């Protein structure tokens, strides 16, 4: 399975445009704020999205993702700040003139039209000749596997089928930019994976800029060129999936994507190429192989992913390796992985993952064993917030 899913950052088409200062962004948000009464839904966001990017917005419910998309589509005007599309200020451009299609979180399918008519609606508005409409509609209908349902009205469809109609309706126009608000949430895993591929194919073939909202981190990791993690109307971090996962900039981001162990501590020694952190929670001094921007004695946090830790029955040889001691508290068997919960001597619980390379019957480390939990100095990341 793992080989079948290409990781977004591996893909050739995604030139890392955001690292090239000569590149003009396709969408530019300048200090965009949106208030509903006293409530700030989007809080001073500045963001550049480049042509042909597959950009994901990730964040908890109510953090302002939909509001951000609605501003891009033109349904909401920013309270302050500017939105530029291809260098042009969008504030005066009404939604029906923007080269943007949005897939609504609520689908917003026309109840009086059948699936076919719903999908054809946008093409009709552009005056596309009807034979072409027919072929293009049929094409997307088969892409989302709705052939048998083409003549049905939306209320005769299941939730997942409706979602696919909404997706097809936004895809069929092949606009310059597609805004997809949780496009695959109601689909089963197989169909979702398939549709993810289809979306990536479309993106590669047509160069459409995608901005997608998702609650599924795996999906975000799979499809995105970059991910923005949001909280309370702000963007906390914008980076490639790898960076977001490996080098989160805060505990919030580290916690939001995947499992992580976080140890609070104080800076004991801060050099250019390493830092030592005295941590009571870990019960040891932690060594990290990168300098940080913090004074001695400052409180910092060390984040270590479960799969980057090892457990051993013996103490490690290398004195630089971070090492904690504890007792196996619980083991969860997930098939390919086993999840170990280890209670450190300091009282902190640590989660670590181990691939099941050997058969479980031969498991060397088991419940209540006293173990050494180790990780390399370059495996963790020191967080300042």
């Amino acid at each position, binding site marked *: 399975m793992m080989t079948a899913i290409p990781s977004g950052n591996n893909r050739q088409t995604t030139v890392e445009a955001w690292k090239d200062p000569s590149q003009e962004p396709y969408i530019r948000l300048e200090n965009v704020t949106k208030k509903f009464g006293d409530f700030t839904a989007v809080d001073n966001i500045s963001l550049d999205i480049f042509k042909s990017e597959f950009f994901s917005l990730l964040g908890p419910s109510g953090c302002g993702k939909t509001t951000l998309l609605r501003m891009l589509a033109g349904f909401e005007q920013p309270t302050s700040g500017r939105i530029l599309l291809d260098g042009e200020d969008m504030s005066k451009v009404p939604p029906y003139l923007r080269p943007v299609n949005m897939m609504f979180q609520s689908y917003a399918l026309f109840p*009086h039209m059948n699936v076919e008519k719903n999908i054809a609606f946008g093409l009709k*508005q552009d005056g596309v000749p009807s034979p072409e409409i027919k072929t293009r509609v049929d094409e997307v209908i088969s892409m989302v596997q709705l052939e048998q349902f083409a003549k049905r009205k939306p209320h005769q469809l299941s939730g997942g089928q409706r979602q696919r109609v909404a997706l097809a309706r936004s895809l069929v126009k092949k606009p310059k930019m597609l805004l997809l608000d949780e496009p695959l949430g109601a689909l089963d895993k197989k169909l979702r994976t398939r549709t993810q591929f289809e979306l990536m194919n479309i993106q590669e073939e047509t160069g459409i800029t995608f901005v997608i909202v998702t609650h599924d981190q795996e999906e975000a990791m799979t499809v995105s060129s970059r991910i923005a993690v949001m909280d309370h109307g702000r963007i906390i971090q914008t980076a490639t999936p790898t960076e977001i996962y490996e080098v989160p900039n805060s505990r919030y981001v580290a916690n939001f994507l995947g499992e992580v162990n976080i140890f609070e501590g104080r800076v004991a020694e801060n050099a250019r190429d390493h830092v030592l952190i005295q941590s009571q929670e870990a019960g040891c001094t932690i060594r990290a192989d990168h300098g940080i921007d913090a004074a001695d004695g400052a409180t910092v946090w060390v984040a270590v992913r479960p799969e980057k830790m090892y457990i051993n029955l013996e103490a490690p040889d290398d004195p630089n390796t971070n090492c904690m001691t504890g007792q196996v508290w619980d083991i969860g068997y997930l098939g390919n992985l086993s999840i170990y919960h280890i209670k450190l001597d300091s009282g902190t619980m640590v989660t670590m993952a181990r691939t099941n390379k050997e058969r479980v019957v031969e498991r060397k480390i088991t419940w209540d064993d006293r173990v050494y939990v180790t990780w390399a100095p370059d495996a963790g990341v020191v967080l300042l917030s």
Partner: protein
Amino acid sequence: MVDSTQFISGAIAQTGRIAGLHARLMLIPPYRWLANLRPLPIGRTLLFALILFFAAWSLPGLWPLWLVLAILLAGVAVTGRGAVIALPYAWLLAFFLSPFLIVLKISFAEIASAIPPYTPLFEILWDMEIEEAYLSVKLNIYNYLFLLEDDLYINSYLSSLQIASVSTFLTLLVGYPIAYGMVRAPVQYRTMLLMMVILPFWTSFLIRVYAWIGILKKEGLLNLALMSTGIIDEPLTILNTDTAVYIGIIYSYLPFMVLPLYATLEKMDESLLEAAADLGCHPLKAFWVVTLPLSLPGIVAGCFLVFIPAVGEFVIPDLLGGSETIMIGKTLWAEFFNNRDWPVSSAVAVILLLLLIVPIVAFQRMQENNAKKEA
């Protein structure tokens, strides 16, 4: 014939006995038909009730037939589903069917100088010579033929239908923007706007129509306003013309148009218009391709609610219309109160009802279809 005492004792007894009774009654076809009644087989119910009613009304000795009818309805009510169905049917029977059947009966009578001023339909006569009693049934269809003979009636019907259709259409034109505006208004104003639409009902209908006389007459408010602003030099003649009738109908029935329209428009999801705009559809076009089709049920309901009473309208053409404004309501009134010809005026009423039944049935069919589509 069902023994009424048996039913009553059955009704008093426990449900078990009622169920037993129900089982036995199911052997009797009319009861079985009624018990198997599904919602809206209107034709069959009408026919059945019609026959029963005629018998009961015409032969005073046959009042138990009423009881039978009640028993059958109650029997329908005993079956679980029937209870729900029986109530609207009982309502229909009491307040629609009974008066209609009375009118229908009179329409087949002959005018007479009596109280009431028509001949009875059924009479039990005693023939002295052969010493036998016989039942005389006299159905006089001349009243209906008479309606065809005199142009007045046909013209009244046609003119009523025309005035009602035109004013229904105009009411729709006026009512739709009002309903649309109400739906688009900020939420906190909507209740108030709704109140304002209903508010005129708090004054007597008659007084409101009289008020229009004051507005529309030659030296009325409208002419005064138009002349003082210099838009016209001569006062307009509006009162006692068809125009005044249109104004009166539109004004009086506007709430019946606005309320169903408001109800359907309010249900409409605003994001549909956003979706249309997103797909490149100009808002004006989106109104035609999205809003209007989705508000069709409201349009149909509103049109029926205006059209049906407008056809039979009497007060408005009488007070605001002129002598050349003929509407069936006025004709009927004249027939009934001036000529005291109850049978002919009843025939006028029956034909009017038949003319209206057609759109009502069409409307119900449509709603049924809609309900089926929803399911």
